[in-house]
Structure formats: structure tokens, C-alpha cells
């Protein structure tokens, strides 16, 4: 099996590699006149950090004892923006991409009024409030990132663009999100090589060559997925034959090659409400289950992981630092069939054995309604078909928190997550995860299995329910709420083009 060589100088680096910078600013611009915009974008292309550039930055950063501050820049353009600069998007068959997010807010489960207009959006209700261009600016220090941001905004203004949105994202301690849970643990591994050198893979391969799973996993819990799921012009993932390259995504549209779709959703987080809920439910579950249940355990049941990232499937009673500190263990679980023993290649030929882990198909350790189980069923067969299909729905998540951390500022302050995720089909990837699974209490495993109590949306006044069940499915206790603590406040669907696309605009 030969993995495709990725065009590292054409693909923007945030999609396949991720900046992973402690600071990430987003700036949303509306274009002025087309000619000035095209000229500016073309010039800007020389400053774009390609996959090659970002990869080098990440490598150097992980090894350098003294960190050389870097600033990274990627861009993404909306369908409206693309049309403004003369690209015909009418033949792109993705109704989410072709419209402002507000048009499909109801489909996404966001709160809407009788005319289906979103009621909680700060941006993205219409094309007027959707950026034509999203600047994604990463940096190692807040000051440098902000300075670079100002420079870019000024340059955009000189090109006739106007700023309609700006937000500062920053990593929280422990790589956590605002509810306190470590985030971004589980990402699929993208197949593909960075050069013609043998085994020069984008995604590091940790399994020993002798391990029979080495062709399927980069490391325990990280399945390998063909890059066409995330970047146009490359082979896609086939459900039944994961080792075989599928048809190319975006094959019929050369201008999309080496580009990606990017969804941005600004997700406000109500930390006070969440904490209040888990505290109340700790009392409820203590009574219902006849044993002491802590608020942390309630949170872990809702998420599927403890705050330190250790999964409840592996450690149902309490967090396990030995697991959370070990990249080879923290994601080594599967619901339907458990995981096999794996061999991690070690230095000096001393391979490390990762033992097999049991399954949890009866959802006794990770509830059916847990967030990570709802949005990533792993090896479970679902309402959408065989388990191999699950990988075709996954995205590359590159989000970062915004707003001050909760203990620092206790008053209800706007804080949350700048959710960013790359894919090549909004309707076959994001929409399935969001609308068919996360917001659907009857999917992916069982009818009435429960809502995603962490991020799932419900109509105003309607309850969300998660029910803990015994092995035969009899209910033991329910978590019920009409509240939400993750509130979508707008966003947009964008296209992150190749470097050449930008360069040839002028």
C-alpha cells in the first residue's frame, strides 16, 4: 500500500498539521473591490504557512530548548468571498458551504425564531455578517500574535477590506477547555507522506512494523485515514477496505485541489451552569445508584473522559494519571470489540507491549450518551452502517478556547471555544456528526439512547436526557436538563485554498 505524497508547499499547514500555538487569533474581513482584494491575497500567499512550514515549526519547537517565537498564518474564504473574487462556486454540491451558517441554523440545532433566523449568533446569520475571509493567526506570545494581527488587519484595510469580527484564542492550562476537560486528545491520523523519502509520513507511526495493526493505526487509538477526507485532490476513505485508497475528493474541480473545507463555530460555554448541573446531579446519582458520586464523576460520564483525559471506559471509578500521562494508553480503547494487544516500536529494538483492553458494548463504563461516544463511536456499528463508515465522518479539529478562564473571572463572562474543523464534505462529515448523532437522542447506537449532554442542542424548553442503564438496558438513573452550557453563537463555512490558488489570483 502506497500512501500519497502530500503537496507540502501547497496545502496550508493548519489543516493537516495544526499550529498548536498557545495563541490563535481569528480575524473576519469583508472584501472591498475585487481587484484590490485579489492583489492583496496574491501577495499574502507568500506569507501563508504551508504544511511544510508548519511541520518544520512543530519539529523545531518540540526539540529546541530555546523557543524561537514564530508567527503562523493561514486563511480561509467563504463561498460568498470566493464569488466576490471571481470563483464560480455554484457547482460545489454542498448546501452548507454555499450558504451563510444562519440559513441552516435550524438544521444544526441552533436556536432559531419562527422564521428560522438564528437568535444567538454574533456572526454568520447572513452573508453580511459572515466574513468573506477568515485570517487564522497563531503565535507563541500574546503580544507578538496581536501585533501581527494588527499588521494583517491594516494590510487588509489598505486593500479595501473591512473587519467585522476579531477574537483572541488562547490555550488554557493543561490543554483544557473551559469546563476543565483536557481537549483534543483524540484525532485521527492522516495518511500521506511529506516527501519522496521512504516512511517520511505526515503522521508519526509508533507501532512496530511487526504489529498486524501497524497498517491501520499510527498509535493505539489513532486510526489512519486517507487524506482525501480532509484535503481535496487526494484519495478518500473506503468504509469496508480502510487500507485501499478511495476515489479522489474534489477531482472535478482543479481549483479546490490541496484546499480544505473549514467550519468555524463560536461556541460560548456557560461554566457556571455546567458546574451547577454536575453538582446537582452528583446528589441525584448518589441517591439513585446507592453509592457516592462526585461532581467530577458526573462530568466524566457526560464527556466520556475524566478531566485529565483518562477515559471512563478504561478507568470508570476515578481518573488515572498513569493513563492520562501516556500517549500510548490515553486513547487505547474501543467500544464494540475492545482493543488488541499492540507493539510500540522502541529504541534499541526493545518494543513496548500495550496490552489489549476490554470492550464496553453494553455501555457500563462509558454511557451511550457520553460526548466522545456519540461523536466518535469508533468500532461500533451505527445507524449509518458498518463500523468502517465511522471514520468517513471524522474531521480534523483545530479549535482553541477564547475568553478568560473561569476561576480568574467568575462573573458570567463570554468564554468558550473557537471550534475549527477541517474536512472535504460538510454534509457528509460535520452534519452527520452534529445533526445525525450529537443532536439526535436516537443515534448512533440505540433509539432513545440519550442526548449528548455536553454539546448537544435542544429546542428551547425541551429536555435533554441521558440515562444510565444496566447491562440489559434497564434504566438505572437519568440526567435531565432543559439547560444548555454550550451555546453556538455563530460562525461560517469556509474554504482554505491552496497557496497556488491565492498566488494566481493576481
Amino acid at each position, binding site marked *: 500500500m502506497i500512501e500519497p505524497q502530500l503537496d507540502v508547499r501547497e496545502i496550508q499547514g493548519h489543516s493537516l498539521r495544526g499550529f498548536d500555538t498557545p495563541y490563535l487569533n481569528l480575524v473576519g474581513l469583508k472584501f472591498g473591490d475585487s481587484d484590490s482584494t485579489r492583489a492583496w491575497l496574491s501577495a499574502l500567499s507568500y506569507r501563508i504557512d504551508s504544511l511544510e512550514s508548519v511541520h518544520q515549526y512543530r519539529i523545531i519547537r518540540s526539540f529546541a530548548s530555546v523557543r524561537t517565537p514564530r508567527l503562523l498564518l493561514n486563511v480561509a474564504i467563504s463561498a460568498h468571498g470566493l464569488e466576490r473574487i471571481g470563483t464560480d462556486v455554484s457547482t460545489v454540491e454542498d448546501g452548507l458551504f454555499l450558504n451563510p451558517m444562519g440559513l441552516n441554523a435550524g438544521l444544526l440545532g441552533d436556536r432559531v425564531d419562527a422564521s428560522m433566523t438564528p437568535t444567538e449568533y454574533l456572526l454568520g446569520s447572513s452573508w453580511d455578517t459572515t466574513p468573506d475571509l477568515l485570517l487564522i493567526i497563531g503565535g507563541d506570545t500574546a503580544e507578538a500574535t496581536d501585533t501581527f494581527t494588527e499588521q494583517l488587519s491594516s494590510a487588509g484595510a489598505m486593500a479595501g477590506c473591512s473587519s467585522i469580527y476579531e477574537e483572541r484564542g488562547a490555550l488554557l492550562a493543561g490543554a483544557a477547555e473551559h469546563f476543565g476537560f483536557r481537549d483534543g486528545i483524540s484525532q485521527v491520523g492522516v495518511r500521506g507522506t511529506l516527501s519522496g523519502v521512504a516512511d517520511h509520513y505526515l503522521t508519526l507511526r509508533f507501532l512496530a512494523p511487526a504489529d498486524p495493526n501497524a497498517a491501520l493505526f499510527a498509535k493505539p487509538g489513532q486510526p489512519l485515514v486517507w487524506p482525501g477526507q480532509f484535503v481535496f485532490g487526494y484519495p478518500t476513505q473506503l468504509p469496508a477496505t480502510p487500507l485501499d485508497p478511495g*476515489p479522489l475528493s474534489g477531482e472535478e474541480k482543479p481549483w479546490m485541489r490541496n484546499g480544505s473545507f473549514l467550519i468555524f463555530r463560536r461556541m460560548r460555554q456557560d461554566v457556571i451552569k455546567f458546574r451547577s448541573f454536575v453538582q446537582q446531579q452528583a446528589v441525584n446519582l448518589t441517591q439513585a445508584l446507592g453509592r457516592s458520586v462526585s461532581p467530577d464523576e458526573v462530568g466524566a460520564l457526560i464527556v466520556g473522559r475524566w478531566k485529565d483525559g483518562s477515559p471512563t471506559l478504561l478507568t470508570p471509578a476515578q481518573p488515572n494519571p498513569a493513563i492520562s500521562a501516556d500517549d500510548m494508553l490515553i486513547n487505547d480503547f474501543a467500544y464494540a470489540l475492545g482493543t488488541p494487544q499492540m507493539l510500540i516500536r522502541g529504541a534499541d529494538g526493545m518494543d513496548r507491549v500495550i496490552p489489549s483492553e476490554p470492550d464496553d458494548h453494553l455501555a457500563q463504563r462509558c454511557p451511550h450518551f457520553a460526548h466522545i461516544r456519540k461523536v466518535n463511536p469508533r468500532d461500533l456499528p451505527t445507524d449509518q*452502517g458498518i463500523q468502517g463508515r465511522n471514520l468517513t465522518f471524522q474531521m480534523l479539529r483545530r479549535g482553541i478556547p477564547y475568553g478568560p478562564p473561569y476561576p480568574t473571572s467568575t462573573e458570567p463572562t463570554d468564554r468558550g471555544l473557537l471550534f475549527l474543523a477541517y474536512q472535504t464534505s460538510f454534509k457528509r462529515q460535520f452534519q452527520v456528526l452534529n*445533526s445525525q448523532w450529537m443532536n439526535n437522542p*436516537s443515534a448512533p447506537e440505540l*433509539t432513545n439512547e440519550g442526548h449528548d449532554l455536553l454539546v448537544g442542542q435542544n429546542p428551547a424548553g425541551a429536555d435533554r436526557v441521558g440515562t444510565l442503564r444496566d447491562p*440489559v438496558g434497564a434504566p438505572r438513573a437519568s440526567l435531565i436538563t432543559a439547560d444548555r452550557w454550550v451555546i453556538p453563537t455563530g460562525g461560517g463555512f469556509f474554504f482554505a485554498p491552496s497557496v497556488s490558488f491565492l498566488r494566481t489570483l493576481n
Partner: protein
Amino acid sequence: MPLYSPPAAIDDFSRRPALAPTLRSGWDARMRAFIAETKDATNPDLIVSGLFYDQLADTSGAPDPAPTGIPWNAFPQILTNWFATQPVANQEKLANDWAEKTITTDSLFGFFRKDSAGRFAPIPVTYRRQDEYCEWYVERTGNKIDRMYFTCEPPEYWTFLAENDITLVHDLYKELLHNQNIARDELTWPFDVYSAPNAQGQRTVLFKQGSYNPWNDWNTTKGAVHLTHWANSLDAEVRLASDGSLGWPQPAGAVDFHRLICCAAFGGVNRSSDPKIGGSVFSLAVQGLSIALSNPIGLYMQSFQLPGLRDPQGIPIPSALTFVRKSADGQNILRAEIAPPLGAEYSLDQCTVNGERFLYGGQVTRLITMSLFAVAKQIPGAKVTPVSTCLSTCCPYPTNGQFFGTFPNDRKTCAQRTDKDWARNLRDLADIQAHPLMTHALLLEEHIRPQQALYKVLGRSLAF
């Protein structure tokens, strides 16, 4: 004594107050007979399951828990799999387009009529290839889409109604299809329908002239009232649940749904429904639980919304979607309809759904979750019926590894499977130009051998 209710406990019987008691007891008897068939030890095509029970006939004393719902997606996965190796941009459109084309066969069902000379000729039967227990019909005038019907009503219920009161069925057809001009005799067979001859050369009358024809034009090419696909039936659902509860030879522990159905051949391996239903039932059975289908037995669309359905001006039209027949609590839907609001001067194809032009029923079906409901409990003394050997095995299609065929467990390798072996698996795809195997010559060969059914429709599978 409790009775089995019609699907979703829909109350058509009250339209005929005098007949209602007969209808209620008759439907109950019909359902019990379906379940009793699964206990027929004389049937050579059946393995009786020790863990499948009749919910309303259970005398164990063990209380029934709340039903467990098993969900699957309504869009035919077989088409998604079939087109999976096509260019990505074409996959969805191809599947949506072909999903709406009916299939006409004069061999699959084995129906014959006697001509004036006394010779028997096969009768062409038209059915929809939508095989996930949800079927839909798109009503068009030229290129304009006037209306869409979505149904998951089983044919047995409608056949039962017709046996007792064909005028009730006629009334319902006219009402559901908004057409008072449907003639009653358009719903019935114009001649006696005979079976294929048995080993002794004898034929039986399957349907008498004038009796209800489930595949009449108003339920196939001109509308949709109930399911038409050969695998979409309550009988098949019951049989699937029974077969799923057998002790199939599978590794201990959690169940691989795909491996199970390849072993057991209790349904279509390329479907969303069968692997999920059979696998879910088996997962309960391996815990030693007995399984029954929960009353009322049926298969349902779960209630859904279409917030992204907008008129040509971009204005949402929630009233375009109606649930015409449903359970009392509105959760389990038997029939849905989409049409422009009354008085609208546009057609559905001028509307958008989720930002895209509304051109196919499949755009909606992909958003529908189907469910059936089972109960599972410990019944003292109930034991699993072990099956020592797999009945079947699967092979990937030679030029499309996402599509599978099911074959007898006869130790042949996949490479040894012939075009004829594959033909049975491609029954619902025979007319799709994309594949090369089902040649015109092969179809003709089947046509000129009418004296035996080449295969049997058995539950959710075509038996070997």
C-alpha cells in the same frame, strides 16, 4: 386479553365500527401466526429459536422491561455501497437518482397468469428498490415535483384490511393519495395469480381475481401507500428477530455485526437495517436474554423536522412536512408527506432543503432514523438454540470492495464465485448500468425458465 395492535396502534378499524372487533381479533391472530411460524419445527428453512418469544403469549411471569429501540438510517445503504467507488461528486446523486427508479421483474416473485390458451405466463411485478423498511414516491408532473410520500407501512396490514374490507382500503388510498378518481379495480388483480409449479408440476392460486394487489400501480408507479420491496414486510421483521436470537458460531464477547450477518444470512449484508437489527438482537441473546418484538409490532420513522426546507424566496415552510399517520404520541411515524403549502404557486423542485435544490426524496430519507422496538428479559428455562456452522459467507464484489455478496458456506473461495453466483446478490441492481455482470442474456435465461423459482424470498434474504 391484550391483542396485538396494528403498527403504531393506528386506528383504521374504527372507521368500520361494526367490523372493528373482527378486525382487531383478526389482526392479533395474524401477528400471532407470524410469530408462530418461527416455531414451526417442520420448516426445513427455519431454525427454531429458544430465545425468541411471543410477548403477548408469554406466561413466564417475568415482567417485560421497557422496550429497546434499534435505529438505522432510512436511505438504502446498498446504493451507497454500490456507488462508493464512483467519483465522489457523483456518488450521492447517483444513489438518490437510482433509489427512485422502480424495478419490474417477471421472475423474482414467481407469479403467473393463465392465458386464454391455458398456458402460464409470468406476471411482471413492479417494486421499489428501497429496502430499509422505508419507501418513498416522488410525484412529478414533467420536471416539476408536486409531492413526496414516505411510508413504512407493512404490506401485510394492508392485505389484511383488504381481505376484510376492500372498500376501506379503497377509501384510504383515495384519501392518502389525494385522488378521488382511483378506481377500486385498479387496486386488485384482474386475473387469478398462480404460483410456479411445485415438484409435482402443480400450481396454487396465490391471489384470486379481484383480490387486493399490493403491487398495484397506485402503490408503485403512481404513488406509495405501503412497502413493496420483497424484503420489507412484518413477516420478515419477525423472522429477522427470531434468526438474530439464534446461537450463531461467533467469537465470544462483543459482536461484529458484519461478521454475524455474513455467517447467518438473515438479511442483506449491504443494508443498514439488517446487520443492526440482527446484531442488536444477537447481542441481547448472548447475554442469555429472551427477545420479543414489542407490541405494536412495526417499523417506524422516528419523528423528524426539516428546518432547512425553504420556498423559492428562501422562506422556511415547516407546514410542507406533515405526518399523516403516526402513533398517538407522535414519535413513531408511519407516513409522511411533503408538499408545497396550500395555495403555493411553486413546486418542490423550486424549493431548497439544507441549502440545496430539492430534487430527490433521498435528500430527506438520509435524514430519517428508522426504529423497531424489542423487549429482552430473562425467562427461566429459556435456552439459546446453538447453530454449529455458519450458513453463509461473504465476498466483496470484484471491482468494488464496499459492496458484498452473500453465498452459501460451501468452501468456495471468493475468486471461484461466478457471475451466476453474484446474480442473486445483484437482484435489485440489475438495471443499473454501472455494473457489467447482469447481462441481458442472463435476464433472458431466467425468463425462459419459468417452471421453477430460481430462489426463494425468505424473510430478509434470498435463500440460496
